[in-house]
């Protein structure tokens, strides 16, 4: 009896916290994305030959590159925030500001990069 | 039979008293604690100010002084043997709590910090003394947590969210309790040799109250139905400083730290009513003073409230006037930081519920129904006594706010309740376990569930004309307005009639919810039944006592009358009709005399 405890992605995202869920989930996606990318990349370089070229094709696709860049940039910036706050719990008071700062860094950097990659991708 | 559990001792209620009893009983007997709330939700957690003991950590203090203050506070209605017992045990009780890990605030020497509280005095100088040991303004919370934690450590058996519905007695002896598992709606029989009731008070019979929704007098009502009397039910404490309209308590600790009461004209009025201790007079005195100010048109903006002021500049100004100093004799100087640090929860309440900051603004307050002095009569070992000769009911115990030992008499001193919980909770637990060692289990009746089931069924099957919410609102209004701080014959009679009318209407109450899982509607209706039973006893006892004493003050009988009324009231339920009797007050050291602060 009773409803299960599952919290779906959409329910979680609708929780009106201090963007905690968003950064948490994006950090995860970023980490996972990179992990997958790196494995594929190493695999392709290691195997070489036909499969290598095929795999290369996937991640050299410009859309995939934007995704990877998103993963890298977000994960790196958010990871730095987590690292600093974890190693200096005193700074946690400034959590809200830290998240603001994070977005302030991420959005322009990612915007520019996405523009560069996509225009290069579309132009080619 | 399904759902039968067997324990030597069963404790009903997991507040301070119930947990202390459970802890001590479980050391010597197989013990279960059942509670309709998860233990840490008990109302002991709401207690703010402190627990009293003559530790003397700041200045000289003695258990005898504590005793005298308590006797005087009770308006001489408290039983002095029990009071002496409690005050002597107080020091060890508080130290024991500390040894259990309770995080008391500390003095610069690292000892338990103490603060002044209403009615606590140095008997030689008459000045306030620091007797209330405290953990910020959440002492009760810390006691509740600490005791629950110790119970976990000692593997006490808990039945969380089980509501006791009935007491089972066989041949005039205790046989156990009946309870419903709220989460499943199943009825359970808990077969026991000893039962300890620690179900808290019944402040929910009043409109404006500091009490929890759970304060519905379950224990008292259950026992009343089994022919056990209730003692001194007319004595109900109105705490002077509840948040206007909401009734949420602002601890006396605020005045202990130097806060003062200010009327609508901006004057400090307590010196008029209590020249020596002023704002720190005992609660009944302060509540009446506020009420008088309001009645005489000096409430704020003509409304039913006055101000409580803890702004440092006010406090320091009056500290100079009162000659208040620090323990080392230096000038008393309260800072905004100290207010924040010593009264964090109060600041929080004001911000949330009033939208004001007490450091810069005054708090609008009004007296609020707060504490049940009366209750299930017991002796100082927590044994329930059922008549004027103090005959013990075998295997039945009570402790905490639901019990009447009586150490609080006509008026409880602040911080004495928490002390009452730990002292008498402990002894009730010990005695209950001791009794269980010698006694045998009574044979359960064939169907112990029958009666409770019938009661439940009749609630569910009422004609459904009456609404629980309306009935309880009417009850609370009648009781607050007519059996409140000031009482008179006419109003009380009308309240009593009202309660009786409501009791009749209650028979037709509507319960729509037919479910089993967390059927809170049914349980609320059942609780309303208890409130009505208890309210009738309160109104009737109050109407009967023709004098003013402690929390019971009558406009038509403004004086205390020791000749006729220095006695406890006992009320029995005899087949649905209430009967009144009396019991002598035990007086040992202190003869009654006029009570001035």
């Amino acid at each position, binding site marked *: 009896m009773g409803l299960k405890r599952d919290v779906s992605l959409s329910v979680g995202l609708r929780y009106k916290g201090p963007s905690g869920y968003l950064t948490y989930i994006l950090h995860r996606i970023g980490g996972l994305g990179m992990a997958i990318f790196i494995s594929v990349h190493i695999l392709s370089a290691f195997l070489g030959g036909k499969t290598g070229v095929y795999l290369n094709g996937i991640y050299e696709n410009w859309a995939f590159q934007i995704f990877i860049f998103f993963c890298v940039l977000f994960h790196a910036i958010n990871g730095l925030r987590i690292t600093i706050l974890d190693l200096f*719990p005193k700074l946690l008071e400034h959590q809200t500001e830290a998240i603001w700062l994070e977005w302030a860094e991420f959005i322009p950097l990612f915007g520019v990069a996405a523009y560069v990659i996509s225009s290069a991708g579309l132009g080619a | 039979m399904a759902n039968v559990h067997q324990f030597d001792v069963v404790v009903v209620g997991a507040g301070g008293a119930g947990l202390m009893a459970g802890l001590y009983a479980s050391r010597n007997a197989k013990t279960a604690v059942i509670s309709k709330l998860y233990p840490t939700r008990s109302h002991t957690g709401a207690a703010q100010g402190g627990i009293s003991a003559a530790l003397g950590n700041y200045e000289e203090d003695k258990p005898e002084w504590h005793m005298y203050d308590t006797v005087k506070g009770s308006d001489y209605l408290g039983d002095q043997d029990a009071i002496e017992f409690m005050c002597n045990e107080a020091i060890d009780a508080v130290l024991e709590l500390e040894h259990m890990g309770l995080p008391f605030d500390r003095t610069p020497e690292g000892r338990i910090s103490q603060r002044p509280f209403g009615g606590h005095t140095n008997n030689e100088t008459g000045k306030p003394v620091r007797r209330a040991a405290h953990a910020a303004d959440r002492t009760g919370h810390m006691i509740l947590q600490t005791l629950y934690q110790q119970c976990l450590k000692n593997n006490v058996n808990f039945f969380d969210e089980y509501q006791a519905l009935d007491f089972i007695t066989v041949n005039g002896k205790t046989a156990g309790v009946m309870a419903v598992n709220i989460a499943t709606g199943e009825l359970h029989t808990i077969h026991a040799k000893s039962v300890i009731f620690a179900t808290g008070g019944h402040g929910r019979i009043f409109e404006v109250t500091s009490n929890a929704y759970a304060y519905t007098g379950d224990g008292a009502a259950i026992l009343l139905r089994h022919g056990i009397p209730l003692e001194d039910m007319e004595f109900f404490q109105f705490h002077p400083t509840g948040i206007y309209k909401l009734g949420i308590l602002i601890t006396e600790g605020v005045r202990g730290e130097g806060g003062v009461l200010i009327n609508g004209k901006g004057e400090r009025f307590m010196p008029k009513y209590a020249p020596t201790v002023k704002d720190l007079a005992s609660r009944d005195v302060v509540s009446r003073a506020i009420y008088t100010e309001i009645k005489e048109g000096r409430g704020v903006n003509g409304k039913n409230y006055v101000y409580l002021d803890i702004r440092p500049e006010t406090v320091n100004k009056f500290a100079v006037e009162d000659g208040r100093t620090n323990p080392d004799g230096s000038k008393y100087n309260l800072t905004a930081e100290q207010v924040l640090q010593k009264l964090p929860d109060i600041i929080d309440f004001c911000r949330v519920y009033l939208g004001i900051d007490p450091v810069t603004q005054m708090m609008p307050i009004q007296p609020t129904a707060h504490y049940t002095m009366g209750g299930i009569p017991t002796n100082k070992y927590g044994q329930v006594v059922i008549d004027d000769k103090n005959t013990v009911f075998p295997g039945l115990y009570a402790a905490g706010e639901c019990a009447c030992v009586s150490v609080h008499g006509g008026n409880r001193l602040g911080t004495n309740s928490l002390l009452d919980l730990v002292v008498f909770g402990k002894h009730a637990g010990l005695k209950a376990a001791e009794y269980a060692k010698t006694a045998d289990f009574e044979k359960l009746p064939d169907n112990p569930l029958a009666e409770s089931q019938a009661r439940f069924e009749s609630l569910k099957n009422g004609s459904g004309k009456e609404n629980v919410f309306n009935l309880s609102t009417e009850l609370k209004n009648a009781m607050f307005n007519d059996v409140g701080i000031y009482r008179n014959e006419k109003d009380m009679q009308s309240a009593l009639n009202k309660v009786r009318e409501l009791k009749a209407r209650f028979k037709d109450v509507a319960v729509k919810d037919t479910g089993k899982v967390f059927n809170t509607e049914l349980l609320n209706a059942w609780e309303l039944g208890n409130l009505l039973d208890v309210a009738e006893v309160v109104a009737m006892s109050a109407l009967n006592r023709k004098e003013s004493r402690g929390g019971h003050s009558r406009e038509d009988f403004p004086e205390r009358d020791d000749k006729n009324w220095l006695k406890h009231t006992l009320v029995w339920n005899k087949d649905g009709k209430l009967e009144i009797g009396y019991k002598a007050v035990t007086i040992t050291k202190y003869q009654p005399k006029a009570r001035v602060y």
Partner: protein
Amino acid sequence: MEITVKIFRYNPETDTRGNYVTYKIEGDENDRVLDVLEYIKGMRDGTLAFRRSCAHGVCGSDAMRINGRNMLACKTLVRDVGANITVEPILGLRIVNDLIVDMEPFFDNYKKMLPYFINESPLPEDGRERLQTVEDRARFDETTKCILCACCTTSCPSYWANGEYYGPAAIVTAHRFIFDSRDEAADERLQILAETDGVARCHTAYNCTEACPREIKVTKAIGEVKMAMMTGKV
């Protein structure tokens, strides 16, 4: 003023999933959300189920999601949340009836923290209190305020993902004892928290701190526990 309240309803005996029911009532902006719920239960639909007791934010009974955020219904006024109110049960625990969730897993995690004072050394010879400086007492003051309402744990993304995680409330309890200079079992608790479902599960999401009605800086407390693990200083 008119208040529109949308409440999550789930009747375990007839429903397979929850649904929302909207009530319109007259109320005051100074009413607590709890008062609003009481009124609806009293006058509109008695079957509405929720827990409550103290009505002023000290017992921890009535944690729920109000307008999408964990709060205590008794500590939230209509004026703080506006006249359109959505009330839902807290997340990450099994819903058993309307706004009531099964709290057992939450308390089980609490109980794993050795949530009691441990000091087996002899008491002071004079039988008096164990001494503690004002600073030592202040060290863990904040975490003693916890009322186990579960607002924090049920707002934690990590707990949503994984119910095995002990959760912030349990760590707050552990913090209260680890940093109590009188307690002697800091090491045992740190070792419990060093396990897979302990503090490593906290990803500094901060929802917990934001949700705590007692204004405990939960993430900071967790951070202090993490640092105690690294440095060994308690």
